């Protein structure tokens, strides 16, 4: 599966087995109602050491790269795992690393690596933009340190995360700040979400004490880097989810009989499945190539990240919608899993702004 690298196949197999046992559909539905299962989070961190997989060794991680993380995220996406993993190990951890603030990394990353701390990144506000230039939340320096005032929306796992990394504006411009969950003046309210497997929250800050991460006013460049990495990580989840939709459709087309034959024998259905396969192959290729380029520090990584985001978003949305079509009536029922993938696909496609911004992001990364 993975360019002939057996250790990646082993990792994939281990994660797949774990998720088959710990995140079957029944668990996904339960977690959609009641939130993620802390016991599973704990096992993921301790048994599989996933939270620290792609963190540097001196911060308690195992020092692997995005290539390995990509494998894990593909499987999580395929299983629709409900977990603060993406928010913690991708958004928050990568924001800390991108800040190059060694004190902050040493303070927060070991807890993340050990699975003791969940974290998230609060960047977007009510206008849903991830562009730091659009941030209105304010950071103010007081004799006792920084305090934050304002409102953040669409914060992944924002109601449960132990550590919040918040983009807020000081006189020097947008900067990154760390806030503890119990901080005074902080209120978190869950949002009603299209995708119940990925909880989001609105956070209200009323003079909440915070710690500056990195240099003041530096969140612009930092967020460009974090968004590129987050797009690739999300692309991996999307590729995994799209592959699962394809498998469901092909399996159903082989076994569902109408007019006295499996529906997969009809060319209209066959070609639909082939179209899904084409998109899934492209999605996997772009997600994996982008991860590889990130690990190599290649200059064309940002272009590859934007390409992966567009390709995987389109592939997953297409596969999730066509999966329902291949299943027909049963695919539109609440009981069937197809809608859970449809919800996840749409929510992933639009999380970072969707087509309204991702195409300009690609052209921007290409210098056009």
């Amino acid at each position, binding site marked *: 599966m993975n360019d*002939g690298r057996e250790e990646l196949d082993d990792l994939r197999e281990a994660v797949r087995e774990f998720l088959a046992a710990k995140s079957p559909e029944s668990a996904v539905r339960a977690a959609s109602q009641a939130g993620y299962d802390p016991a599973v989070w704990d096992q993921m961190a301790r048994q599989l050491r996933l939270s620290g997989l792609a963190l540097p060794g001196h911060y308690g991680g195992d020092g692997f790269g995005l290539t390995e993380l990509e494998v894990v995220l593909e499987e999580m996406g395929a299983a629709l795992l409900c977990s603060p993993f993406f928010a913690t190990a991708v958004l928050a951890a990568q924001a800390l690393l991108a800040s190059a603030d060694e004190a902050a990394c040493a303070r927060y990353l070991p807890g993340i690596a050990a699975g003791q701390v969940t974290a998230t990144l609060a960047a977007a506000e009510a206008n849903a933009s991830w562009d730091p230039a659009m941030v209105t939340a304010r950071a103010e320096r007081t004799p006792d340190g920084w305090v934050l005032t304002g409102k953040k929306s669409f914060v992944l796992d924002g109601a449960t995360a132990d550590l919040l990394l918040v983009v807020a504006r000081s006189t020097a411009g947008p900067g990154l700040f760390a806030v503890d969950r119990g901080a005074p003046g902080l209120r978190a309210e869950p949002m009603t979400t299209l995708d119940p497997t990925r909880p989001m929250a609105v956070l209200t800050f009323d003079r909440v004490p915070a710690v500056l991460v990195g240099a003041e006013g530096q969140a612009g460049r930092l967020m460009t880097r974090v968004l590129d990495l987050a797009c690739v990580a999300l692309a991996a989840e999307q590729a995994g989810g799209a592959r699962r939709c394809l498998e469901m459709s092909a399996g159903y087309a082989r076994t569902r009989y109408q007019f006295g034959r499996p529906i997969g024998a009809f060319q209209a*259905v*066959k070609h639909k499945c082939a179209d899904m*396969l084409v998109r899934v192959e492209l999605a996997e290729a772009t997600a994996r190539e982008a991860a590889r380029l990130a690990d190599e520090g290649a200059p064309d990584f940002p272009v*590859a990240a934007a*390409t992966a985001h567009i*390709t995987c978003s389109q592939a997953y949305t297409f596969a999730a919608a066509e999966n329902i079509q291949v299943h027909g009536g049963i695919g539109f029922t609440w009981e069937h899993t197809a809608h859970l993938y449809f919800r996840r696909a749409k929510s992933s496609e639009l999380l970072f702004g969707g087509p309204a911004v991702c*195409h300009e992001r690609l*052209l921007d990364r290409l210098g056009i």
Partner: protein
Amino acid sequence: MPDDLQEFTRQAREFLDAHASRAAERAAFRWGEGDDRVAYFGADPPEVEERKLRAARDWQRTRYTSGFGWISGPPEYGGRGLTPVHELVYDGIESEYDIPDTGTLSVIGLGMIGPTILAHGQQSVRDSYLPAMYRGDVIACQLFSEPEAGSDLASLQTRAVAREGSWILDGQKVWTSVAQHSQIGMALCRTDPDAPKHRGITAFLVDMSSPGVDVRPLRQMSGGSDFNEVFLTGVRVPDDHRLGEVNGGWRVALTTLMNERAAVGSEGSGPVAEALSPERLSALMRATWTWDDRAVRRDLSELLAGVMATAHLNARAFRRMQAGVAPGPEMSVAKLMYAQNLTRAAHFVSHVLGPRIIADTGEWGTYAWAELLLATPALRILGGTEEIMKNILAERVLGLPREPGIDTTSPFRELPRSGATS
């Protein structure tokens, strides 16, 4: 990289440094400078074509005499006896050099028919043709498609009848690339019309200079003639030029076609690829004042994302092959995407150009795109139509059942055909 590959790489570079020059850094693209032709098909004037063909043969001979003409071929026929991975590595290195395009020889002859002769040819034929082909002396073409046998190749009607130790061939082939340059052609013929269609076919190697072989250029919708019709009238073929068993030609054809998919899917460079580069397309947008049109920019992004995703798919397939992993469906997917990307690009450019692509104003880099636009319908047909490719992906990769009702058991002569009244 294993030691022998490193040593092989060193030898390849030494050879190329001695016989070719490194491709110059491509000069930065400037609007209005240089050749503005965007061609998928060749269609050169005859004297240019002749010159290019000579250069291609010369370069193939140079490769051959230095041990790079048939890297994965067996030594007894002039091959180097190395692996397909070595072949890939060599191709990668050679692409860094300025060398003549050998496509006329290599795509069909060396890429598809050579391996078929090696697998199914009789000893005398292997001895006489294989070294000559890989030395650049003999060009081969593929006499497969017929007017009544397109996607359903197995329904071909060209007859071969045994007579006095030879075979007599009668029929018509079509869409034959490079037939006008070829010394030999691989022909599929009906040898038993009473057998089911796949079991009554035999493959032959035809000497294209034999009496009764008539090659006529076929003019395609884009205006040029890149293909031929080949009429076979009482053409005599000795029995030792038969490939495989009598009535076992379908298996032989599959060997050839397997190699075709690998060859077609890997196209990804050349003038067309350059025309689709982000810098070229954005220059076009600047020149046409569509630079900041949001709808056009969105279309450009969609197009470039598709082109780059396909490049990533190819890169991944290449790395997997290098690592010795069996190829997955990437090649078939890449072929579908190649056609889709080029088609989309031609229409994107046409929308940017507007009326300037329906009538020639003489302006550089505008009406020139009409040539690509008129070539794109071919891409979804040649080398297996889009519909057939999707059937193959669905059946072979996803395990979906075959279309019911396709008759593979009745005698060929009883099958319904186009134009027959019931």
